[in-house]
């Protein structure tokens, strides 16, 4: 009887197996990396309607974060400053800068500046700013070195596992409450100090569903 398959067909199963292993590994690794918020969300830095520079205001001029974001210690929502806050200075500083055109327009018309939100959690996750800053979670821990950002970008994935990492090991991140707005806070014995702060401030981060998802 004539042979149906040529001799090289002997190699096919081995190559198929090898190909399958390579493909499966690539698929798993690819999904793992490219489909995670660490890839999709981190680094998001949209162009804002007004080219506001945190690097200049918080970095060079050394504003405290709370000058503009006034509610972080009281409210679950950290506010974006109203036009009035901008105009506190800019009714006298750089009054004819074209970069501030939209701010002056907002001041005159009463229409809000349409800032673009960078850190956007889905609405079924109820994040509370006050609950975090009042127990010593620094701005920097979640938002990065904002004082060095010309344009604000997301530096952390804000994924649920990222939240839970810290809720399960808070000592890795907590600092004294008076240091919360400090940029570039760093100590050598963070874990030791963190554990101390956790027991001192009675920090007991929740890891159950209803704490964030109600």
């Amino acid at each position, binding site marked *: *009887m004539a042979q*149906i*398959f040529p001799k090289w067909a002997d190699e096919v199963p081995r190559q198929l197996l090898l190909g399958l292993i390579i493909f499966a590994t690539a698929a798993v690794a690819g999904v793992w990396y490219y489909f*995670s*918020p*660490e890839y999709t969300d981190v680094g998001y830095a949209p162009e804002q309607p007004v080219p506001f520079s945190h690097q200049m205001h918080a970095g060079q001029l050394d504003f405290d974060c709370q000058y503009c974001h006034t509610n972080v210690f009281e409210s679950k929502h950290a506010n974006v400053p109203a036009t009035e806050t901008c105009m506190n200075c800019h009714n006298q500083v750089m009054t004819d800068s074209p970069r501030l055109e939209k701010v002056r327009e907002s001041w005159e018309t009463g229409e809000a500046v349409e800032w673009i939100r960078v850190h956007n959690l889905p609405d079924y996750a109820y994040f509370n700013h006050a609950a975090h800053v009042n127990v010593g979670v620094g701005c920097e821990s979640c938002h990065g070195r904002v004082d060095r950002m010309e344009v604000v970008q997301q530096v952390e*994935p804000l*994924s*649920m*596992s*990222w939240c*839970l*990492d810290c809720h399960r090991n808070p000592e890795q991140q907590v600092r004294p409450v008076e240091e919360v707005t400090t940029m570039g806070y760093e100590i050598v014995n963070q874990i030791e100090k963190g554990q101390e702060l956790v027991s001192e401030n009675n920090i007991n981060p929740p890891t159950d569903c209803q704490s964030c998802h109600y």
Partner: protein
Amino acid sequence: MSTDYQYVPEPKLVKGDHTFGSITDLIAKTPLSPTPKLWYLAFGLANILLIVLLGAIGYLIWDGTGIWGLNNPAGWGWAIINFVWWVGIGHAGTLISAILFLFRQGWRTAINRFAEAMTIFAVMCAGIFPAIHVGRIWVIYWVFPIPNQMAAWPNFSSPLLWDVFAVSTYFTVSLLFWYVGLIPDLATLRDKAKSKVAKISYGIAALGWTGSFRNWWNYEKAYMILAGLATPLVLSVHTIVSFDFAVSVIPGWHSTIFPPYFVAGAIYSGFAMVLTLMLIARKIYGLEDIMNIDIMEKMNLVMMITGNLVAFAYLMEGFVAWYSGYIYEQGIFWLYVVGPYAWGFWILMFCNVVTPQFLWFKNIRRNVAITFVISIIVNIGMWFERFMISVASLSTDFMPSAWDYYSPSFWDIATYIGTFGLFFTFFLLFLRFLPMVAIAEVKGVMPQADPHNYDGETNEFDPSKTEPVVVQQEQTV
């Protein structure tokens, strides 16, 4: 007083004057000859129903599960009924191929390929329902324990999660078992095929089977192991399906008899489905010699036994309801009998309790037409069994203020009818392109395969040696 004892000779498993060659020709001719017109007609009809299914699923995903007739007390309706029904149908396939293999039942060879194919397609139909009955199908991958950026895992204490593992394992093992069984037959088709395409396709599928001693040795071992694995699997899969109900607290659901009772019901309905399909196929494809009346009778016997097991379970449910002294349990049973779904209960009683009693009569068991009708009635009855369990128990439970009547919507019905499209599309493809009887195994149970049936001198097959030896014993008491 003296009595003559004699062994009752087993009827021949393959009727007619078949040789190895004629069996191969009989079975292999269907996949290798041109497609008959009737097949196209049937396939077209099945495709239309398949499109109905896809349309119903598409609209469901677009518009939401509210298009179904579900209400708040009865959150499980036709989707779950049909899921359990289809899974149950699938179980006969594994029973025939695995359990009967472990019991060395030669008659299984006539129907095992057929029944395994039915299992696979029935499980496909069943598997659709757990996937689509959820409100948000796009996050259904959350049921799989995959490490993810939510650091979230499924809850392993839910029987619905066990369902995921049970049904996916069941499908995989059934498919493997079926495929392992197919390999020698695919090699037969490869060798018989005339066209190049057929040769290459069957050749690839046959994985280079040569039928050497070593091939067969490994094959038999693998088949045995798979049969040994599939047997506990088939029992546990439907047990897990029954846990969906039995683990809950609903009166009428919370019952320890459910696991064996569901399995018995699964075998009952599965055998009925195999019979329905087999009786049509043997006629159309001229396989009466293989799928013969003796085999039909044996299947009827299994159906009768499991039918009576199911009837016993109904009796027990009634008895335990009375015996429990528990008002909700008694109430729900009373509501089955005379409540808003009493019509379903009495259809169920007729189909599942009365019908199998006819099978006590030998001439009915051996009557093709009556068996065909009974097999269809049984499947209707088993559908109603799941209907009563799911819907009737849910509609009227603890709080009378949460009682409501469930009736299906158009889309419930369209989805169910559509699954027949899926089933028959695949089943017809199977009938057309694959050998519907396990050629190698049927040859193994023919008298020619028994080395004792050969003449010692000439080594020629000697039909006279195949006559059963009648041993007579005289006993005096």
